[in-house]
């Protein structure tokens, strides 16, 4: 997909290559680090919510727990089960992680900025394709092949159940995600994130116009990122670890990074599409606003995990097809009607 970046970069002549590369590196490095750091945050927050201390002993406040985990993951023995399909088993985690990062290519995280003392303009987005939102959703959909192939290739019944659940859960919620963002897209009239951001520069946040779409998107987002209460495909109490049952070491870590990157992506999309993007808010600069919004949505996901139990697969499907999808369709209809009038 590298070529995509090149191609779109050529379409934006004022941005020089180096800026795009910086942005790409930033995304890769920062998001990967944040994804790792996310595990620490998650443990801490879940602990606090259960009145525990959480990681405590590696580094100050346990901050270096991440490093310890990293070392552990990298040095662990890489086990490939005897009856697994070795090739597929090996590439499955890579699919998850890679698609998560590729999706981020089309996501604007910061406002454009110039590196001080140089003319290098770092664009807000690595690749501002005009169908950005669809591209991100598409990439996240492609990312589902990770769990799917992982579960199928490992020769383990829990894996198979995990991948079966992947197939139904993602296929179903893909529909809800798409329909829920369709209404804002209709209002903005563009698929580009930058346009979404710009649309909200002067007006109110889109969440005010589209509260139902926002809630639907959040719910679908939980399902897409495989988070509690929809973490059916690796739910320990039922299916050991689902599709990651046989994974160990860094292969397992890649799934983890992919999951956290996806959480960030969902947070970014929610922030830009519904919560005003990286626009300045009163006196607060835009970049702080966007970080705050992403952080909140990340925190919200953890909060929900601490508070709510997860649902059964049949409840999940019932909710998707019988509640959320009709709601989304009605929402789209009403939005269309309002726009027409």
């Amino acid at each position, binding site marked *: 997909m590298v*070529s995509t970046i090149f191609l779109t970069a050529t379409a934006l002549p004022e941005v020089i290559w180096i800026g795009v590369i910086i942005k790409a590196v930033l995304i890769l490095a920062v998001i990967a680090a944040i994804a790792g750091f996310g595990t620490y945050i998650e443990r801490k927050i879940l602990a606090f919510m259960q009145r525990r201390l959480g990681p405590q002993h590696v580094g100050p406040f346990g901050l270096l727990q991440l490093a310890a985990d990293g070392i552990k993951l990298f040095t662990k023995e890489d086990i490939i089960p005897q009856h697994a399909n070795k090739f597929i088993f090996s590439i499955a985690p890579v699919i998850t992680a890679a698609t998560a990062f590729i999706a981020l290519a089309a996501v604007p995280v910061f406002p454009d900025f110039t590196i001080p003392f140089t003319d290098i303009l770092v664009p807000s987005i690595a690749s501002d394709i005009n169908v950005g939102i669809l591209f991100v959703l598409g990439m996240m959909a492609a990312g589902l092949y990770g769990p799917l192939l992982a579960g199928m290739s490992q020769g383990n019944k829990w894996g198979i159940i995990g*991948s079966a659940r992947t197939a139904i859960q993602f296929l179903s919620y893909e529909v809800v995600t798409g329909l829920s963002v369709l209404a804002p897209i209709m209002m903005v009239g563009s*698929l580009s994130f930058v346009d979404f951001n710009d649309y909200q520069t002067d007006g109110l946040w889109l969440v005010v116009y589209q509260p139902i779409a926002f809630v639907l998107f959040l719910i679908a987002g939980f399902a897409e990122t495989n988070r509690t209460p929809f973490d059916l495909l690796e739910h320990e109490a039922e299916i050991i670890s689902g599709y990651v049952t046989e994974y160990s070491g860094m292969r397992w870590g890649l799934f983890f990074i992919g999951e956290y990157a996806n959480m960030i992506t969902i947070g970014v999309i929610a922030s830009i599409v519904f919560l005003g993007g990286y626009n300045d808010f009163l006196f607060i600069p835009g970049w702080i606003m966007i970080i705050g919004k992403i952080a909140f949505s990340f925190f919200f996901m953890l909060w929900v995990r601490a508070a709510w139990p997860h649902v059964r697969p049949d409840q999940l499907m019932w909710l998707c097809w019988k509640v959320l999808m009709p709601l989304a369709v009605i929402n789209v209809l009403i939005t269309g009607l309002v726009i027409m009038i």
Partner: protein
Amino acid sequence: MYETIAFYTFAISTTILFLITVMSKNVLYAMTALASGMVMISGFFFLLGADFLGVVQLIVYVGAVMALYGFAMMFFDATRDIKEKHQNPALVFLLGGLMALMFVVIFSAPIIGDNVQALYPIVEGVGNAQAVGMVLFTKYLVPFEVAALMLLVAMIAGIILAGKKMDYSLTTSEAADEEINVEEKLQADIEREKGEA
């Protein structure tokens, strides 16, 4: 330059992937190759600047192939060791030959491509999505609506097929109880017959 390299990369990988899809007996390989092939095809759309179509290709086919995986999961044992052996070398020969021919066509494509005129050239300032929308709702309105109708029919048919016995519960319905009763009756009959004998 980059387009050329990208085009050849996509082209070759697409061809090879689909060949694997056709030739492999391992359902996992076939399906995975099919899915990746679909992703590769979307690359062509991006190359041509048809971002929207590219993304649609991604979303639609990725989803569709995932449904196929569902069937694969149900019908095949993915973990079984499968020997990749072909009983019909003629077929391999034929497909190999066709592929070689295809490569020739692919390599000559840029030459031919020079002479191809776009039917609906990209209009500056008009988004990809709009362009597709405009074409769909003007020139191809009737086929589009017919296709939509067909999908609706298919959907309803699917619902009916799947939902035929939706209100029939194996655990609680009286019908099931009756079935059990029937079995009991049968058992009783058999015993009575035995007794008589």
